[in-house]
């Protein structure tokens, strides 16, 4: 049985626009999303801002009612069995809100331990354990207001796993954390999986998703546009290889000609100061470097490199495809 | 429109919006209008409990005092609220005429204060049967305006202090507490210990309240003119000191980078 199951989940927000004359406005944030996450899996949700990731997570963690569709976590319905679900899951949002600033980290944890029913003797031991795990041991008696962004994020994670939940939801847990700190957080997340937990993660960092996730769903405008292991995603979309060509002053016509070449699946142009970088995705059957260059006849060409597609290439192809 | 005039009004409207981001009437009416009325009622009944003074004595005192609440808090928040939204240094970075800028901020606060006091009277009239000759209303309105002006001056001073300290609400609370006790709002001045009585002479509101009470009883403006002049002088003094202090702190704040300290 899948640990997390989403079946045709939909969520529409009703808000108003305008300050003087309020007009009702409906935002279809999630439009029929289905996926399943198995025990012990680290599942990633990727997607542009406003794609509906947070909305999806909030429905799964019982904080938001779906407009239609169904979701179960560990077999419990997220609408009707909210308490059962809440008891068994942990969740962590990125950002530095959500803590009692004037209390110590220890008190923050003690409070939530009690709310999650971790009490008595077990409580102290468990709090020590999670503090150790997130690397805040020794700083726990300081007030949170003096904590750095990274420390707050660790504290959030500590809070999220206090009650040893079977499933952990992480919504952009490394946002705003410095590279070293983010790497440590990733190790922490990988360790969660090592201890048998199931994790659902959202992030905007592709290398992070690539490094951590067993499986990924890419969401754009409220629907899933691609799903699979990172390897599958890379293979499906790019089909094979990526050729990067540095050019100086390429025009639209030349880019159009490149797109016309048999075997080229996508061409994107990135501006870099005076030069541009052409990222050409091709199928792997043929070696296309020569035809590409011949179409660029007359354009000053710099460095040319051919590489394996990254998850980012796959992601960009998925979310830009109309 | 002249630039300084525009700044005056725009600054004013912005500060007013910051002050009542909840400007919707459904909220403004209960808080700003219920407040003075319930205060008037409370102290009038407290006066009955103590067998101290007549209901109208309390109606006048508290209605005028409620103007000070509005003026003090309004001025403080107009400045402090701005720092909250981190716009203060942006505003100060403009070459706008400083006097127009800050006085523009004071104007809506002043008007609001006067309206607040007026509702106190209305509440007293409706619920406690407070009566005064209709012919005295213009004179009373003038006194109210003067009281609000004097308190706005004090508010300018506390607001200026707020430029330096984070605790504007605390300062505003303390100031209000002092005004409530010292200025003869609820305790006749002659029942106060001597030093309090003497201090009251130098606070805004003391003289307006005294004048307002006499006007409510039918006295002419002329007969209370010395009180009114004194109040005007006090208000001007506070305003100027507050304004000077604000400019001083502004310069200093630029130097020390404390303007937007959140």
């Amino acid at each position, binding site marked *: 049985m899948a640990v997390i199951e989403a079946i045709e989940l939909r969520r529409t927000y009703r808000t108003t626009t305008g300050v003087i004359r309020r007009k009702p406005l409906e935002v279809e944030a999630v439009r029929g999303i289905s996926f399943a996450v198995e025990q012990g899996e680290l599942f990633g949700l990727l997607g542009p801002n406003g794609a509906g990731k947070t909305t999806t997570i909030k429905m799964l963690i019982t*904080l938001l009612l779906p407009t239609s569709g169904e979701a179960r976590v560990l077999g419990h319905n997220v609408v009707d069995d909210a308490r059962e679900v809440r008891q068994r899951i942990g969740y962590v949002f990125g950002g530095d809100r959500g*803590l009692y600033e004037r209390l110590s980290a220890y008190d923050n944890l003690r409070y939530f331990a009690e*709310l999650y*029913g971790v009490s008595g003797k077990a409580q102290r031991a468990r709090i020590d354990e999670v503090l150790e795990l997130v690397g805040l041991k020794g700083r726990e008696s300081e007030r949170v207001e003096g904590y750095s962004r990274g420390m707050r994020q660790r504290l959030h994670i500590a809070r999220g796993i206090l009650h040893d939940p079977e499933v952990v939801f992480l919504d952009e847990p490394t946002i705003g954390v410095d590279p070293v700190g983010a790497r440590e957080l990733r190790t922490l997340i990988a360790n969660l999986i090592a201890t048998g937990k199931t994790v659902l993660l959202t992030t905007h960092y592709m290398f992070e998703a690539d490094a951590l996730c067993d499986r990924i769903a890419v969401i754009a405008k409220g629907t899933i546009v691609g799903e699979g292991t990172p390897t599958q995603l890379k293979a499906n979309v790019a089909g094979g290889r990526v050729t990067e060509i540095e050019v100086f002053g390429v025009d639209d016509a030349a880019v159009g000609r490149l797109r016309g070449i048999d075997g080229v699946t996508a061409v994107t142009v990135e501006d870099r100061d005076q030069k541009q970088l052409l990222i050409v995705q091709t199928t792997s059957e043929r070696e296309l470097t020569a035809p590409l260059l011949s179409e660029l006849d007359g354009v000053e060409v710099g460095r040319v490199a051919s590489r394996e597609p990254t998850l980012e290439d796959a992601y960009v192809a998925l979310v830009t495809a109309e | 429109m002249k630039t300084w005039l525009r700044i005056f009004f725009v600054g004013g409207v912005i500060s007013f919006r910051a002050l009542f981001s909840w400007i919707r009437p*459904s*909220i403004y009416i209960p808080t700003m209008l219920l407040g003075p009325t*319930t205060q008037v009622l*409370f102290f009038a009944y*407290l006066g009955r*409990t103590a067998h101290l003074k007549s209901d109208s004595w309390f109606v006048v005192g508290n209605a005028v005092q409620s103007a000070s609440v509005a003026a003090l808090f309004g001025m403080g928040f107009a400045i402090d609220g701005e720092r909250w939204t981190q716009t203060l240094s942006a505003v100060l970075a403009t070459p706008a005429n400083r006097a127009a800028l800050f006085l523009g901020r004071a104007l809506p606060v002043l008007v609001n204060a006067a309206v607040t006091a007026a509702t106190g009277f209305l509440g007293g009239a409706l619920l406690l049967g407070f009566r005064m000759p209709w012919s005295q209303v213009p004179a009373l309105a003038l006194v109210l305006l003067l009281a609000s002006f004097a308190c706005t001056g004090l508010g300018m001073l506390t607001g200026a202090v707020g430029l330096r300290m984070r605790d504007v609400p605390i300062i505003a609370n303390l100031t209000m507490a002092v005004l409530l006790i010292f200025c003869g709002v609820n305790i006749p001045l002659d029942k106060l210990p001597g030093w309090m009585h003497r201090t009251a002479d130098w606070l805004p509101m003391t003289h307006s309240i005294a004048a307002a009470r006499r006007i409510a009883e039918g006295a002419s403006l002329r007969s209370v003119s010395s009180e009114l002049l004194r109040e005007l002088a006090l208000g001007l003094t506070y305003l100027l000191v507050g304004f000077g202090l604000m400019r001083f702190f502004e310069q200093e704040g630029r130097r020390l980078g404390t303007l937007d300290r959140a």
Partner: protein
Amino acid sequence: MTRGARVFWTGFVLHFKNLSASPFMMVTAAIWPLVYATLAFLMFRATHQAPSLLYAALGAAVMGIWSTTATSAGGAIQQQRWLGILELLVGTPARLILVLAPITVAIAGIGVYSIATTLLWGRLLFGVPIHVLHPFLFAVAIPAAVLSIGMLGLVLASSFVLYRSASNLSQALEYPIWLITGMLIPLSLLPGWVHPLAWALAPTWGMRAVRRAAIGGDVGVPLLVCAALTVAYTVLAFLLLHHFERLARDRATLALT
């Protein structure tokens, strides 16, 4: 202790700690009761027909409990939302009322500081004798008053979170409740139609219990009524919060984003 009691107690202790660390909360909780005590002392002292100064000191002290409740408890749920904590709290398996009640009760509890300060202030500046007739009953009456007033605060908080346009009413409730619950003004001075209203409000009975424990009179009845009102408010808050949670999950109003 049962789990519910533990959740309540831990929450109360931590929120009390959190509030005590807020300078604004502490200063306002300390200043205003002293201001009203001073006003009452000076007013009562000016005539010979007024109640005693101890009566005034106790009244001002309990006014302080209501004051913190009116100014802070009404917006307590909003406050948690602004802190970004509301959804974390709702997301726990604990019952919402057990999570939120400690907050408003702790807010009322901050008012207890004012009992100490007003009595001391009165003693030092106005020579008011601190004479408590039944210290034990006094010690029971204070928590009873705090608990019932705090639960009234929760009723306010949960109504205001549902009817947001009313939420600024909370502060406007300060004077009216002081006026009609016999803090400084005997109920007998007020018109008859006010009495039933006063009887339904915890501050009336909390005040009575505290004052009678100190000055004399039957404490049992006010204490019992306090307890009964606490139960009634709890039921009311439970229903309101139940409704709120469902509505908030539906309308996505738990978080600010």
